[in-house]
Structure formats: C-alpha cells, structure tokens
C-alpha cells in the first residue's frame, strides 16, 4: 500500500511537469493552430539558462526564477519573430515541419553551448522531504503540483474571460476573419509563444530541481505529447489533467510491470485513447465544411 501511494505521488509530481509542458503545447495550439514540436527543447534551454544563472550570478531562488522567466519570454519572442512569423499563412504541414527543424537545432545546440554531462540545479530548496504519515514527499514535488494547478486555473480563466484570450481563440479558429475584426494576429502569436515558453521554462526548472539537467531533457517534450493528446490539443485544462494521468500511468507501469514499460506506457495509452476518441478526452471535435 505504501509502495502504491509512493508511486502515485511521484507519478503526480512528474505528471505535473508533463502537464505544464502539455499546457505549453495547448496554449500555442489554441492561438495559432499548430503543434510546436520544439516545446521540449525550449523547456531544456530555459532550464540550462537557469542553471547558468545559478552558477554564475547568484544561487538565490528569486534571482534565478526572475532570470529564467525573462529569458523564457525573450526566447519565445525571438523564435516567433525570426522563425515562425515568416511562415504565417503557409500550410500547417510546412509550419509544423519548421518547428521540427527548430527542435533539432535547439537540441543539438545544447552540446555546443554547454556540455554533454548532467548537472544538478541546486537552489537550496525543493529537495527537503516532508513526512505525511509514513509517506515522504519532496517540497519540490509539492510545489510543482501546486504550480500546475494555479497556472491551469489562471490560463483557463484567461482564455475564458479576458478580451485578449478570446482574441487568441478567434485567431486560432480563423486568422483571416480575426484580422478583419481588427485583431493583430502577429501580436497574438507573439504573446502565445512567449507565454508557452514561460510555461515550458517553469516545467524545465522544476524538473531540474527535482531531478537533473542533461542534454536528454528534450525527451520531456516527447513524453508530454501523450498528455496533450489525451487531453485534446485545444484543451488547456485537459492537457494539465492529461499530464497528471500520464504521469501516474507511467509510474504505475514502471513500478509493477518493469522499466521498459515505463518508457512507453504513455504512448501505448494514447494509441488506445485515440482509437476511441480521436480528438482526445477533452478536445473539441472539428466540424468540417467542404
């Protein structure tokens, strides 16, 4: 029983990280209509920058957090302006392939800018263990779950109630009509990329605090695909919940079936889910006109 609960809690913690990255996918999808395959790489880069700040400038949590968020915003804006904006109006296939190209470039740049060895991001927080009954939980794990829930609520409210959030949804639904209504599509895209980059960065920093930094971290992006698919590409709330579900499934499969299963449990799960609901659990069905 204790083993099960321990698995569940660590599953929730890693699932919260998947959920955050999946939210990043959903934010971009909801406002630009494309899947950003470079999400995992953006996560990794922000985490590496946070690590650089912590070793060169100051190890203070707040300095690192502010620095990481600022660099994440800049990263998102630069990618949008330099790489994505020229592709505005091109077919989805082309733009998605551009993000794949971007992913490959960012992934390999890690080895040139930093190095190929794992590093620990030690900010002096997040690694203490809190005991609830006879179950130990790291503070970092609790913090990431709390962050996910807070961000989920905030992003959901933003898309639902704020004027800008509605504008973003309008652009995703039909960018030409949105332009005619006086919405600046480029501004919407820029903000979506910046926001998504920040969310990805938060996930990256939390991952680095709880585990380690390594050039293989981009795989977090791949493993978050199941989460975002499970929730539905256009469902921000769904992605968060999907992340938690995938995290738990993965950990249970790893704990009871063996480590090989842990790697693919999420992927196996989405193939099953997509057979039953091709638009994800919370996703909206596309209505097509010919």
């Amino acid at each position, binding site marked *: 029983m204790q083993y099960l609960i321990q698995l569940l809690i660590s599953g929730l913690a890693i699932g919260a990280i998947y959920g955050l990255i999946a939210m990043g996918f959903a934010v971009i999808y909801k406002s630009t209509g494309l899947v950003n395959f470079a999400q995992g790489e953006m996560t990794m880069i922000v985490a590496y920058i946070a690590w650089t700040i912590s070793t060169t400038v100051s190890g203070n949590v707040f300095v690192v957090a502010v620095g990481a968020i600022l660099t994440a915003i800049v990263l998102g804006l630069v990618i949008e302006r330099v790489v994505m904006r020229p592709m505005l109006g091109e077919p989805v296939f082309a733009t998605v392939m551009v993000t794949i190209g971007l992913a490959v470039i960012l992934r390999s740049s890690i080895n040139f800018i930093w190095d190929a060895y794992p590093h620990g991001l030690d900010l002096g927080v997040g690694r203490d263990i809190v005991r609830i009954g006879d179950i130990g939980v790291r503070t970092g794990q609790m913090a990431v779950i709390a962050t996910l829930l807070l961000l989920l609520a905030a992003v959901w409210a933003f898309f639902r109630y704020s004027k800008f959030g509605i504008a973003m949804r309008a652009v995703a639904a039909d960018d030409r009509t949105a332009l005619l209504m006086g919405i600046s599509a480029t501004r919407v895209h820029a903000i979506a990329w910046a926001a998504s980059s920040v969310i990805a960065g938060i996930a990256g920093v939390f991952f680095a605090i709880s585990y380690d930094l390594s050039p293989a971290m981009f795989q977090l992006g791949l493993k978050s695909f199941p989460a975002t698919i499970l929730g539905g590409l256009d469902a921000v709330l769904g992605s968060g919940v999907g992340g938690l579900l995938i995290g738990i499934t993965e950990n249970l499969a790893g704990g009871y079936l063996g480590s090989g299963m842990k790697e693919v449990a999420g992927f196996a799960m989405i193939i099953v889910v*997509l057979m039953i609901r*091709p638009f994800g659990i919370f996703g909206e069905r596309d209505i097509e006109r010919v």
Partner: protein
Amino acid sequence: MRSGDFKETYGELVALTDSKPVWLWSAALVAALIVAPFLLNSYILSFLIIILITVVGALGLNILTGYTGLISLGHVGFLVTGAYAYAVVVSKYGMPPLVGFLAAGIVPALASLVVGAPSLRLKGLYLAITTLAFSFIINTVILEARTLTNGARGIPVQRPKILGVSFDSDVAFTHLCLGFAIVTLFATLNIRRSRVGRAFVAIRDNDTAARVMGINLHAYKLFAFVTSAFITGIAGALYGIYLSFVSVEGFPFLLSIEALAILIVGGLGSALGAVLGTILIVLLPEATRMVFSLFSAQMDALFSTGAQELKSMLYGLVIILFLRFQPRGLVGAWHDIRRLWVNWPLRY
C-alpha cells in the same frame, strides 16, 4: 520546334515519360552507376551505397507523406522492424536472404496495419504523433523480446549470398542496392500513375472530396501505409546489412527527421524529388565539413567531436530554409531552371 505538350490519348497522359532522350539519359545514368563502383575508392563508394539505400527508404516515405499526405514521424520504426526481421530470419534461423528480404517487407507491413488502423480516424497532427508513439513502442518491444532479438545486444548480419551470387564485396553490394533502388523507383513511379496513385493524391489534396468521388478512404489509406512500410522495411534490411550489425541504437530517431528533411528538400510528392533530396541530404554533412576544414583545422576538430550534433543542426537548418525560400524543393527549382532554359529569352 516543340511548341507545347499536346496529349491525344489517355495512355499518353499517364505514360512515364513521352521523350526518348529521357529514357536514353536514364539508361546512361544506370550504366554509369553500374560501372562507377569499379572505379571509385571505398570512401566515396560508401556514400554511394548510403545514397542508394536512403533512396529506397525515402521513396517509401514518399508514398505515405508525399502522395497520400499522411505525415509520419515514426518511419524509423518501420526501418528498424525491417532490419530486425531480416536479421532474425537470416542470421538467427539461417534462412536464405531472399526470404529475409521478403520478411523485411512483410513484417513492417503487418506492423503498419496496427498503426494504420487508428489513422483512419485521426487527422494531420494527431496521426503524426501516433506514428511517433509507434516508433518508441517498437523500440521497447524489440528490447523486451530478448529471445527473438537478443535485446540490447543486437544481431550481427553477414552480407548476403543470393542464388549463388555473393554480395560480399563493396562493389557487389553496391550493385545489389542499385538494383533495389531502381526497382523501388519504378514501382513508385508506376504506383503514382495508376488508379491507386491518383486515389492517393486525391486523398492528399482533399480527403472529403476524394470520399465524395467514391474513393474508399479506409482501404486506400491502409494501402498507402502497407506499401510505404513494405518499402521502408526493405531499406531497413539493406541498411542493417550495410552496418553489418542490427541494434536499436543503429536506428536513432534522427532518421525519421532525416527522411522528412529529404522529402521537403527534394519536393513533396515527387519521386524525382525524393532522389534529389537524398543526394543532397546524404552529402550535406560531408560537404559542409569539407568547406569548413578549408578555413581552419579547429573547425575540422569540431566536426569530428560533435559530428552527430552538427548533422542534426544541418538537417534542421535545411528544413527551415527550404520551407521558407523554396517550398517546392529541389524538384521545383529544377522545373524552373528547365523552363527558363527552354523558353529563354521569353518568359513562357
């Protein structure tokens, strides 16, 4: 003087080519490729072999992504399945290589039915991610099925001996790959001009409209998957033989990206494009290395330490630049140049 292309019968419209010079030049190219291995040194020959094998794989993906418009991010899964099917059948059970090649086609084709089945309900990006998931699952399946695949240890593979002819030497193996590449090229070109190929393209252009025209979406999408996986599996077997060792590490995820880069660089939906794209993508890392080593020895050292990373960076850059500046790929550029050449000094 040729004043235009006027086709009078339906047969002329779908013919492979209407010009004698094209046949002549193609025959000359094949003859040159047959002679070339005897003249080239083994370093350059290795590039020729890689190009020929990659052409087979790229043509396989072209059927699925280029013709039918179904994006696959997991084609390396079919590649590795084909390689393992060949290795298990030939190296472990000692069957003749021809049976091995057949297995290398059929096993991925069966696997593609598993991936293809959900694809009937999925569209676009959802499908891309499902294929991605497939390629990860297949790796785990291979690693776990130790009795059949030796798990992480991999299987050594010998160069084959088919019908008494040994393909042990590099020259003979090049000829084998050349044979496969030519057969695949003809097969894809003929698929493209047949009823099936037209159905594929109709599905790519607008699947709802295709369905209204009476094309059975399910059957044709599955058929595209099966054909594509069959061809890609054969390419995987050839690649496994070339590496002389089949393991999961020999088929990294980067190969899926490389295959898509080939199609984009060459020009989506064109067999000629797949061939041109392959040549460019295979030679690109080497060409870049040569250019950089002219500048300084330090750059050369960088290339030898970070070869894999630089290669993937180049692929990424090439994908982005081509999509941005030449979305029709090399084949589009070739058509433009040809038109310019024929019509100059007139515009058209």
